[in-house]
């Protein structure tokens, strides 16, 4: 075994994050670690990277006991980690980013940065990873997937033995995921080990050799990937069977148009026309950069479109501000809940209040007790795990934050809800409750325009699917005629022959 963790425990004030967790990593192995949000995956990785100090337990590398008490020490032991959060400088070049704050220096001339060495070493790294980008390009101008590659190149600046990837695919699309997998397989063939954390079980089936499941900070078990299926893993993660969590997908038959878009063009998309029917879930899928979020922004008046027409309930409507969109019954749930969706420094109940000021007020005066009781009801209805309604949203897990974002829009009770990647970064349990919520509101007559890069989600809960490629619609499919292959072809701009 290249790495062995024995009986690791770690507690934070009020929470036992890890309790006696052990696991081993073989050389040349891709080892997935899964579990719901709060299962302790990230904590364990932070300990391995020397960022958190564990309370109890031991680590062995190549059967030698080691202390992982600083980031530098972990790095010296050959452990490289890529965090879920980006840590790049968008205003600097690829080469500068790879070396970060520790660029090669010229010792003879006042330790100034040795630019020629930096440049050639950076090229070496890029070559080693088969990345064909120009090292002088600014990182801010790269796609998210390319940034991810640079993030990896940066992490492995040493001769690493173990690479930890924390949810590497949460913000990249299918095609980009393939590129990432190629890289991971290359590392594996070189005899390096990979610890892979993801919520996407299908990916794990595709790439992992073994899977370790954690639940509530406890070790559940390690399984050979070949011997288990997705449902088994889900039941291990949840600690219960999923059968009763599955919902009956009845296709919406109502053809009443609540939103029609005719030849809409704007920044990032052009010539978009489609109808949204009453009570349906219409999904916009495609690769990142296909213009889906930009289209949503224009429908919500955040960045108004440049030309074309929007009809709400068959009436031509100009939507040039978000307040106008809401007046016309359109809501928008952002994919970027921390920066665009939530007021993280404010209380949960205030977040519920943010877009419902009119609903909570009479004669312009806010009824705070009404707000509080609504917040309390939503908390119970959506099973938001929060101690009190005056708790700050900042301290919630990703899945719970997402539930807060969704519940504030559900309560707004609008006729059309645009949901942008509604399950991004949330665990399986929360995912199912979000699907249930969406199905529930559509059955009550709300129309949902969903943006999703998750192919299973798209196929499972949509009534119809629109595939976008390069700012244009490349196909509209009914749920029963859609499959993964068709969508992938359309999303990559390959015409059906």
């Amino acid at each position, binding site marked *: 075994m290249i790495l062995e963790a024995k009986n690791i425990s770690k507690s934070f004030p009020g929470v036992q994050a890890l309790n006696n967790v052990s696991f081993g990593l073989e050389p040349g192995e891709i080892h997935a670690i899964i579990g719901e949000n709060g299962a302790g995956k990230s904590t364990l990785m932070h300990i391995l990277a020397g960022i958190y100090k564990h309370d109890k337990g031991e680590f062995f590398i190549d059967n030698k006991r080691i202390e992982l008490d600083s980031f530098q020490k972990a790095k010296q032991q050959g452990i490289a980690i890529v965090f879920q959060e980006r840590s790049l400088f968008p205003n600097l070049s690829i080469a500068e980013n790879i070396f970060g704050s520790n660029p090669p220096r010229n010792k003879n001339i006042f330790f100034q940065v040795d630019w020629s060495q930096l440049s050639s070493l950076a090229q070496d790294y890029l070559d080693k990873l088969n990345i064909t980008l120009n090292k002088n390009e600014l990182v801010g101008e790269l796609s998210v997937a390319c940034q991810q590659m640079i993030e990896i190149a940066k992490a492995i600046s040493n001769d690493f033995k173990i690479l930890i990837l924390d949810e590497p695919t949460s913000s990249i699309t299918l095609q980009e995921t393939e590129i990432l997998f190629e890289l991971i397989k290359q590392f594996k063939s070189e005899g390096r080990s990979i610890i892979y954390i993801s919520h996407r079980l299908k990916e794990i089936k595709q790439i992992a050799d073994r899977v370790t499941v954690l639940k509530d900070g406890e070790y559940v078990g390690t399984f050979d990937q070949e011997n288990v299926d997705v449902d088994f893993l889900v039941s291990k993660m949840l600690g219960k069977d999923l059968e009763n969590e599955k919902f009956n997908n009845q296709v919406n038959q109502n053809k009443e148009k609540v939103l029609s878009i005719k030849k809409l063009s704007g920044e990032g998309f052009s010539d978009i026309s489609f109808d949204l029917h009453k009570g349906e879930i219409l999904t916009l899928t495609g690769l990142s950069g296909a213009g889906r979020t930009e289209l949503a922004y224009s429908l919500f008046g955040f960045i108004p479109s440049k030309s074309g027409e929007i009809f709400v309930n068959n009436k031509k409507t100009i939507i040039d501000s978000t307040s106008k969109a809401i007046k016309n019954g359109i809501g928008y749930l952002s994919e970027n809940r921390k920066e665009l969706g939530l007021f993280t420094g404010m209380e949960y109940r205030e977040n519920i209040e*943010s877009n419902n000021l009119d609903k909570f007020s009479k004669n312009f005066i806010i009824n705070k007790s009404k707000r509080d009781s609504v917040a309390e009801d939503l908390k119970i209805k959506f099973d938001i795990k929060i101690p009190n309604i005056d708790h700050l949203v900042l301290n919630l897990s990703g899945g719970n934050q997402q539930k807060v974002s969704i519940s504030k829009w559900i309560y707004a009770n609008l006729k059309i809800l645009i949901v942008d990647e509604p399950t991004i970064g949330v665990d399986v349990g929360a995912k199912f409750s979000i699907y249930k919520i969406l199905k529930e509101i559509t059955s009550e007559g709300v129309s949902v325009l969903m943006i999703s890069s998750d192919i299973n989600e798209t196929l499972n809960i949509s009534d119809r699917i629109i595939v976008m490629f390069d700012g244009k619609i490349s196909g509209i499919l009914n749920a029963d005629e859609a499959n993964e292959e068709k969508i992938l072809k359309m999303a990559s701009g390959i015409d059906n022959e």
Partner: protein
Amino acid sequence: MNNFLKILISNRTIFLIALIFVFSLIASIFLGTKFASLGNLKAVILGQTSIAIMTIGMMALLISGVFDLSVGSIFALGSVFCGYFIKQMGMPYPMAMILALVCCGFLGAINAFVITKMGVNALITTLATMGIFKGLAIIIGGAGIMGLPREFIAFGRTDFLGIPSPIWYFLILLGLFSYLFNNVAYFRKYYFVGGNEKAAVLSGINVNNIRFSGYILSGLLAGFGGVLHASRLGASIPLAGSGLELQVIAAAVVGGASLVGGKGTILGGVLGAMFLALVFNVFVITGVSAYWIPVVNGIILILAVYFHVIFKKE
């Protein structure tokens, strides 16, 4: 005990009341009735009314995530406009006062226009208008406009139920804006804009609208401070507003405003202003030179932000 400390730290209003109480207690022990008398208390509050009224406007801006360095200059222009309209143009004083306030609101709108429509940031905009407005005050008012009529002076110098009129104006404004920012939907939007501007837009809040109303409010209240000052003095002094922005921002920050927005209450800001007034009052009583006031003011501002940083970490 631990719980008590927690409440003290987490609730700024209670913290400030405790701070004022403890400070007054210590000052009373050392200074006796020179400090601890009803007359002195009245004088402290009266002397700080203009600052406290301006702090209400600054607090509103800080809650929404911006600030205004030009308040001292608008204060000066408010005073000068009023004097100019009365003396030079012969207007009846209520009309002159209202017109001066309208002008000051307009100056706030100029700040908002430059920030929202021209995209210049708040620091640069209000630093520039601080200079522009101050210059205009001196150009219009010269060395000062003296000999304002008795009726106008009465506005700031009458007593009602034994309490000077400026204190009444201040209390009315405090009550009004505390209520507005606590309970009225429109003013609640200030907290959301300050808490996360983009999320506010995506919640259907018109951020530019909030910016305009915030700067107009700040301009109006600063102008009112200036008018009140002119009324009490019987003269419009263009240089009277110099350096007030430091006092007003310090009061708001001591009162719980955060420079990134989303936090603070109107009452907190006013209590912050009153705490500063007590500190400077002790200076006056003990005979320390008034030149020390900006020095201590600056130190208090830095300490207030520093404590905020420490508490946040805990």
